[in-house]
């Protein structure tokens, strides 16, 4: 059951990604990306990461992509980006490069995987506590510093968005 789900969801994710990089209309691109993200959220659930899956849906596929769509609509960008300079074989080297990269990675993945240190958070352990509670605990203990620094990060992003995009300062 799980493996079927993986294959189905994985295939959809890849197909959507392929459409994303070849689709001309940016609105459709965004929709394809959302589709990929939803599929990835399903994979997270398969990997026992329910909280991350939820965040993926709410923050990523929800908030961030809506922002993208909003900007696309705001700027009223048409799908004519290829109009002026489009050469028939322009994309070939880039695609070859990508395939090269993938080949290298797959060759490396074929070798036996080094077994890293195992931690204590087995599936059973996580389920006994609940994924969300565990993450919440960790955020305010082990990861307190990065969590707090993230506030600065988001603050900076807010300042930046205002600074750069506001019509009149």
């Amino acid at each position, binding site marked *: 059951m799980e493996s079927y789900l993986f294959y189905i969801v994985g295939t959809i994710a890849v197909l959507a990604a392929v459409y994303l990089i070849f689709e001309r209309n940016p609105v459709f691109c965004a929709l394809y990306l959302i589709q990929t993200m939803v599929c990835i959220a399903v994979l997270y659930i398969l990997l026992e990461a329910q909280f991350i899956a939820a965040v993926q849906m709410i923050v990523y596929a929800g908030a961030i992509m809506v922002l993208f769509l909003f900007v696309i609509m705001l700027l009223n960008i048409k799908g004519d980006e290829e109009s002026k300079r489009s050469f*028939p*074989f*322009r994309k070939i*080297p880039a695609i070859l*490069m990508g395939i090269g*990269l993938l080949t*290298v*990675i797959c060759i490396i993945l074929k070798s036996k995987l080094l077994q890293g240190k195992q931690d204590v958070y087995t599936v059973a352990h996580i389920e006994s506590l609940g994924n969300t509670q565990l993450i919440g605990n960790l955020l305010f203990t082990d990861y307190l510093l990065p969590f707090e620094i993230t506030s600065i990060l988001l603050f900076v992003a807010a300042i930046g968005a205002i600074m750069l995009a506001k019509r009149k300062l």
Partner: protein
Amino acid sequence: MLNLISLVLLFPLIGTAINGLIGKKLRKETVGYIACGAIGMSFFVAILVFFGLLQLPPESRVFEKQLFNWIESGSFKAAAGLQVDPLSSLMILIITGVGFLIHIYSIGYMHHDKGYHRYFCYLNLFTFSMLLLVLGNNFLLMFIGWEAVGLCSYLLIGFWFEKKSASDAAKKAFIVNRVGDFGFALGIMLIFITFDTIDFTGVFHAASQGNIAVGSFTVTIITLLLFMGATGKSAQIPLYTWLPDAMEGPTPVSALIHAATMVTAGVYMIARCNVLFMLSPFTMTVVACIGAATALFAASIGLVQNDIKRVLAYSTVSQLGYMFLACGVGAFTAGVFHLMTHAFFKALLFLGSGSVIHALSGEQDMRKMGGLKKHIPITYRTFLVGTVAIAGIPPFAGFFSKDEILLEAFVRGNFIYWAVGALAALFTAFYMFRLLIMTFHGKSRVDHHAMEHLHESPKNMTVPLKILAVLALLGGFLGIPGASAINGFLSPVFGEHGHVETHGAEACGSHAACLPYLMMVISTGIAIAGIYLAYLMYIKSPELPKKLAERFSLIYKLLLNKYYIDEIYDALFVNPIKKISLLLWKRVDAQLIDGTVNGVAGFVRGFGSVLRLSQTGYVRNYAFYIVAGCIFIIVFVVFGK
């Protein structure tokens, strides 16, 4: 008294600071007094130090004064300290002494220049750097002085930067010197790695303890790199090209920097590192060969130059070649001795030529001179002394030192060294007298305009000339064979191998005792032959040179154009680097990669699109580099075993 040594450095630095900061507001006289006073005081202290050194017993004549810890990291320590020993005390005497005279001379020579204070500021700075170079007690400090004199030389060659040739010459000097410095810097690093110290004492002590085998690879590389530095600064083949161009600077500068002091830095460095060089016979051979080749090569170019300063410039290159020849055969004393006498007579010759140029309102072409003897008698007489001294007629200074080099080359080297040296000596005598005759004798070819202003130079220019003439006349007696004062004085530095005239005599067998005297006679003969040739060609039958030039037009042209060395360098090195840069910039960056990304279409669209393809700045291309680099690094890190 030895403790005063830091004052030697301090005075010129103070002079630089005063003239550099407020010189613009001071009166010209004050500027001159400050600059000369600084060097004069420095000279005075140098004399005190010298006598202080003499009071010590010969074997303990080394004094080190630590100033502060400069670089310190782990085992590595470089203290800024000064070292006084016979070699450096002799050098500071020459630098401050000759420098002082040239400073005084400059007051008169530069009087009308609007950059008066700038000039003296640079000149003091130069003296400071040169003193730092010879007084430093470690390689790094020496290197700083080394770079600083290069910098001052650059500033002074380009002093009249309004002239394009001057600023070009300055740039050339700086860059050619950097090539040599590159070798020197690497050499210092290698010394540090090998000996774990860069103090002279430490390095030479370790080297002389036999830790390093004679002829070992490391020491050969080290010495070759050091020698590379020396060829740059001392204008030896192949890095000599900057020196003749350096004559674009004011003449006193040529006298001080490009004849008497800075260019001898390479010789000083090799003499200082004699312990290392003696460990590498191969390097010594290279040094001797380059020295001999330069001596002959530059002298041959000097034969046909028509610019008075250029003749002297090539003569300087040639004389430096002698010094390297001496060092290369292990006769360091002879090299340093020649360095000293050369400082006297070459400074004299340059200042004399400066006086001539001054008298002729800036004319430097010898074809427009002639017959100046009666107009500027003092200059003529002192110039004559210098010419005779460089030609090697006894008992003038040049005779003793050059003779000693030739003798050592014969005894410790081989016949070829001697023959090359002797041939160069013949050339030297010839072109120097050619210069003398063309300038001072014969019919006047001076144009009328210049003739009206023809005058003898003021006192503050002629007095230094006279003093230098006396030195050029008498300086040689310090090194009379058999009773050489300089030999005894320098022997603590050079130890056994510095001067081995007697050893050589033993090696030559029983009737070698008369060899030195035989040599003297031969070299005197050579000098006289050269002078006679010059006399024959330029006084007896003045049309002869023209005929010769016509008959041997190819050789003449080759010589006149200095063997086309500059052109070759330009074609071989300078242009390619520029081209590669342009290529990388315009073609590879802009066309090749973009072209690949944009694919075959670029070809289809023909030339029109080639122009457009050359426009990059595209994010896409930059991302492409990143991906390519990424693939490369992954493959390299993972599979590159």
